[in-house]
């Protein structure tokens, strides 16, 4: 019996090739897009899954809240927290600290800048995390102070094919001996490193403060709880823990310091702490992508239901004959289910093929390694296939049910199906179309909203001039012997007329200001956390910043001698943080911080140091010594950029032979902050368009059907004298009505979604009137064009032809 079902099913699909193609194509695109997004999300949510003890691993971030001030969050904490927690809490089995450092690592002639990928780490990390050793093992490394562990990739970079074990890497005046090689850090690890150095060495280098400090907060700290430990119970003990070690200080400083336990699995996608390691954070937008994935599949299935139901009317005669031939209702349902199963299986198979073939371009687009996006786990595929089949069955059930309940006599006599079917069931189909449009409008509105935000972020006046700016990066802190070379380089640069200005600073716009310290007003014990930005006296002018009160730094003494008063500038946010209403009133105030007595000599207007996702931070600008400047910013004004670049590079390599030449253009760097946002916008648009294509396919099929059903009506109207426009509008207005109903449903939903989402951005566009009209207009135009072709064809057809056959 099933062979018979399959045979008829196949012939039916073949006979109605257009319908079948539209149906299969829509469904397979839906399946492919869904798989693509799910795979991508799965990758993002698979971060740190490889660690065997992942459920017991927590990070200890913290929050500082000055009395009456804004709270500040930190992904890292003080170095004394780890040993204290092990000592105080029996449920903590192990704890490890990571201190990120940077600078030049040399091996032989090779000088490589390890920026952000060089860490001092506690040996216990090898017990906490499951990074696998390729050479050596956790017992054989970090026994000596100068031990180093590197990844395979790093080993290749420095030593080529030679055995790295026992080789010495030179960093910051010390030789570190490679004792172990780890397999490369998987792409889905939130911690990324090239070289790990023994933390004990760091304790020695800092004379113990990297083990005991309760004020220096640069240490990513992870704890491993015992298997039977209760994380919530431990969390509850943390306020008392803070009180125990910092109680006096908090009272004196009138601030509150709280520690938290953050599950390892939350770090990559759900971390709302500042100073997060690169690539991690609150990736809330992934949720919206998930919603988009469901919408697409939903639209595809609705298409299926709609097209099949519409088409089923064409088959009412067949149903009648089969019933007369003795078919029972359930036999018919079985037959139609078989048919849709066949169609769905074809669609799913094609969808999986499309997914396979587009995975590579997609992985390029999202810049992820394809092997991480390509899921080979058979259980995943089994689950997906079951999901698709279940969905298909569900989608197939309605048309099958409608078909099988036709009354044989009416359906045989009446090729147009039984009476009542045209009216009542139409409502169901129309509501499905409305739902489909609702989903499409929400997607479009979301995509437009996000695009607007991106555009806004990229075009808004930053308050700082980053154009034509070349930044040269000097690595790390240098000793004072560099000063003559530094001065000579600056002079050489200033002497070139193609370079408008030269300024040096510890940080440049485009990334957060590296350091931060506590500051308090003289005669007050209230600590305020501010970012420290060391600058020279040309910085403010070169970057086009405005002094709103007081004066700029001129020849003020740099921060060297703590006995000399340090003249500083603050930004407007800092003014507010210190509790002054007017910028002018802070000028002349004395402030203590970082061991210096400081005096505010001027106030800088707030500017966007970072992407508009972040709010303004309080910044203290202080005059810094030449040797500590990590960045030299050159404003270029030239028609021959390559020549100028050569000149700069030559001077650099002659003057700083020990420093690799590293540079970037500031506007590009600033823009790079939006990389994730841009990527997301692209992906969202891509899938929105796919969703639209599917929805239009459905609409096209449906209009094709409706018009063929109404051909007689159209012909009669034509004979009675209806014009082309009248007939076209007769048909299209039905669909436009549906779009309008869908808009009323979709826009409030989209409004809530997009607003929620923009909340993640400190500076965001406000949703304007465009938001309510643009998506609707887009959908209307698209659906109009979809329906128009068919309507015109019907309106232009010769009426006699249609009437004669009746």
């Amino acid at each position, binding site marked *: 019996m099933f062979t018979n079902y399959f045979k*008829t099913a196949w012939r*039916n699909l073949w006979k109605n090739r257009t319908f079948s193609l539209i149906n299969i194509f829509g469904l397979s695109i839906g399946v492919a897009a869904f798989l693509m997004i799910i795979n991508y999300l799965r990758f993002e949510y698979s971060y740190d899954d490889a660690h065997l003890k992942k459920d017991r691993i927590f990070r200890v971030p913290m929050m500082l809240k000055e009395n009456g001030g804004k709270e500040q969050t930190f992904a890292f904490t003080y170095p004394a927290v780890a040993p204290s927690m092990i000592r105080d809490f029996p449920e903590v089995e192990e704890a490890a600290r990571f201190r990120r450092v940077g600078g030049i690592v040399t091996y032989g002639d090779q000088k490589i800048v390890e920026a952000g990928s060089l860490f001092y780490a506690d040996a216990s990390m090898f017990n906490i995390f499951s990074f696998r050793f390729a050479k050596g093992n956790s017992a054989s490394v970090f026994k000596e102070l100068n031990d180093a562990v590197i990844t395979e990739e790093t080993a290749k970079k420095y030593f080529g094919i030679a055995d790295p074990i026992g080789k010495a890497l030179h960093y910051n005046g010390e030789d570190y001996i490679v004792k172990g090689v780890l397999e490369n850090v998987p792409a889905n690890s939130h911690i990324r490193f090239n070289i790990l150095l023994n933390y004990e060495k760091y304790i020695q280098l800092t004379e113990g403060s990297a083990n005991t400090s309760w004020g220096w907060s640069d240490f990513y700290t992870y704890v491993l709880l015992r298997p039977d430990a209760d994380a919530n119970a431990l969390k509850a003990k943390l306020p008392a823990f803070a009180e125990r070690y910092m109680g006096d200080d908090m009272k004196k400083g009138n601030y509150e310091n709280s520690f938290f336990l953050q599950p390892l699995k939350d770090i990559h996608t759900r971390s709302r702490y500042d100073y997060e390691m690169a690539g991690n954070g609150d990736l809330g937008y992934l949720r919206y992508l998930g919603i988009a994935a469901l919408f697409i599949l939903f639209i595809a299935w609705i298409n299926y239901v709609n097209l099949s139901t519409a088409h089923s009317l064409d088959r009412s005669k067949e149903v009648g004959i089969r019933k007369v031939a*003795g*078919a029972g209702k359930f036999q018919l349902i079985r037959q139609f289910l078989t048919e849709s199963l066949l169609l769905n299986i074809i669609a799913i198979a094609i969808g999986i093929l499309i997914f396979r073939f587009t995975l590579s371009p997609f992985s390029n687009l999202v810049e992820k390694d394809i092997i991480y996006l390509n899921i080979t786990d058979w259980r995943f595929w089994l689950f997906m296939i079951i999901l698709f089949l279940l969905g298909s069955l569900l989608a197939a059930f309605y048309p099958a049910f409608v078909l099988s309940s036709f009354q044989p006599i009416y359906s045989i006599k009446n090729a147009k199906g039984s009476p009542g079917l045209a009216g009542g069931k139409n409502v169901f189909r129309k509501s499905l179309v409305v739902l489909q449009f609702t989903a499409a409008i929400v997607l479009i509105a979301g995509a437009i909203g996000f695009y607007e935000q991106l555009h806004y972020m990229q075009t808004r006046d930053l308050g700082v001039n980053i154009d034509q700016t070349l930044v040269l990066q000097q690595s790390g802190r240098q000793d004072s012997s560099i000063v003559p070379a530094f001065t000579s380089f600056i002079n050489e640069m200033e002497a070139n007329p193609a370079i408008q200005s030269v300024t040096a600073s510890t940080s440049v716009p485009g990334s957060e200001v590296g350091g931060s310290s506590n500051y308090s007003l003289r005669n007050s014990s209230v600590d305020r956390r501010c970012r420290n930005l060391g600058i020279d006296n040309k910085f403010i002018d070169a970057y086009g910043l405005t002094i709103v009160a007081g004066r700029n730094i001129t020849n003020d003494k740099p921060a060297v001698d703590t006995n000399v008063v340090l003249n500083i500038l603050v930004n407007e946010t800092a003014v507010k943080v210190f509790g002054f209403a007017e910028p002018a009133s802070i000028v002349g105030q004395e402030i203590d911080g970082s061991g210096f007595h400081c005096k505010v000599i001027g106030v800088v207007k707030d500017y966007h140091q970072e992407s508009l996702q972040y709010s303004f931070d309080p910044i203290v600008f202080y005059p810094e010594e030449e040797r500590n400047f990590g960045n030299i910013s050159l404003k270029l004004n030239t028609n021959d950029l390559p020549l100028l670049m050569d000149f700069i590079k030559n001077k650099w390599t002659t003057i700083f032979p020990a420093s690799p030449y590293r540079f970037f253009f500031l506007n590009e760097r600033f823009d790079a902050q939006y990389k994730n946002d841009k990527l997301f916008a692209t992906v969202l648009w891509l899938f929105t368009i796919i969703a639209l294509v599917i929805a239009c396919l459905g609409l096209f099929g449906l209009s094709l059907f409706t018009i063929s059903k109404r051909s007689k009506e159209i012909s009669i109207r034509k004979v009675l004298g209806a014009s082309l426009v009248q007939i076209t509008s007769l048909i299209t207005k039905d669909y436009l009505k549906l779009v309008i109903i869908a808009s009323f449903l979709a826009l409030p939903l989209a409004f809530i979604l997009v607003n929620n989402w923009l909340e993640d951005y400190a500076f965001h566009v406000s949703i304007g009137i465009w938001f309510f009209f643009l998506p609707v207009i887009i959908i209307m135009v698209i659906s109009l064009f979809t329906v128009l072709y068919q309507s015109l064809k019907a309106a232009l057809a010769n009426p006699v032809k249609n009437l004669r056959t009746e």
Partner: protein
Amino acid sequence: MLELKGIFKWYHSGNNRTFLLKNIDLSVKVGEFISVMGPSGSGKSTLLNVIGMLDTFDQGEYHFLNESVHKLKEKQRSILYKQYIGFVFQAYHLLDELTVYENIETPLIYQDIKSSERQAMVADMLDRFRIVGKKDLFPAQLSGGQQQLVGVARALIANPKLLLADEPTGNLNSKQGEEIMELFKELNNDGVTIIQVTHSEKNAAYGSRIINLLDGSIEH
């Protein structure tokens, strides 16, 4: 074979009750060949559909081979119908996407008859109607007469006791029509009870009895 007693069928249009069938009394004996005649709209097809259990009626009794059809549930009716009745239509109503062979086979599939048995039965039927050579063609590839032949073959495949034919020759030319009528005559001689609806006096003459319908009532 069957007996209709006081059958009424109506529908409402506005407040008026319009009768499709009005007080029909009819009894058909095994082996009869009845022709139902009457002008358009007189209720011929409706009567045939009621007899064929494809349509319901609003009042009256219907006894079919000692079963009271008016008391049966839909499912039981369909079992009865599957077993004893075959239908032939004016417009043939073959399934376009099935071959001749498959069209004839369809009723057997719905009766859950085994594949090997089906093969034998369909082969017999093809043979009997001399259409073995056409078995793999689709309806669109056949002439009207040939299509109706397939339609009759399909109606007969399950060995019905009663064959109902709604203007079986209406779409055929006279020669093809004659062939079908000859075939009916043969079937009737073999013991199949036949009720046909027809406009043609000539075709009606093949039957053993003629019933005239006017406005839903039998004219005596």
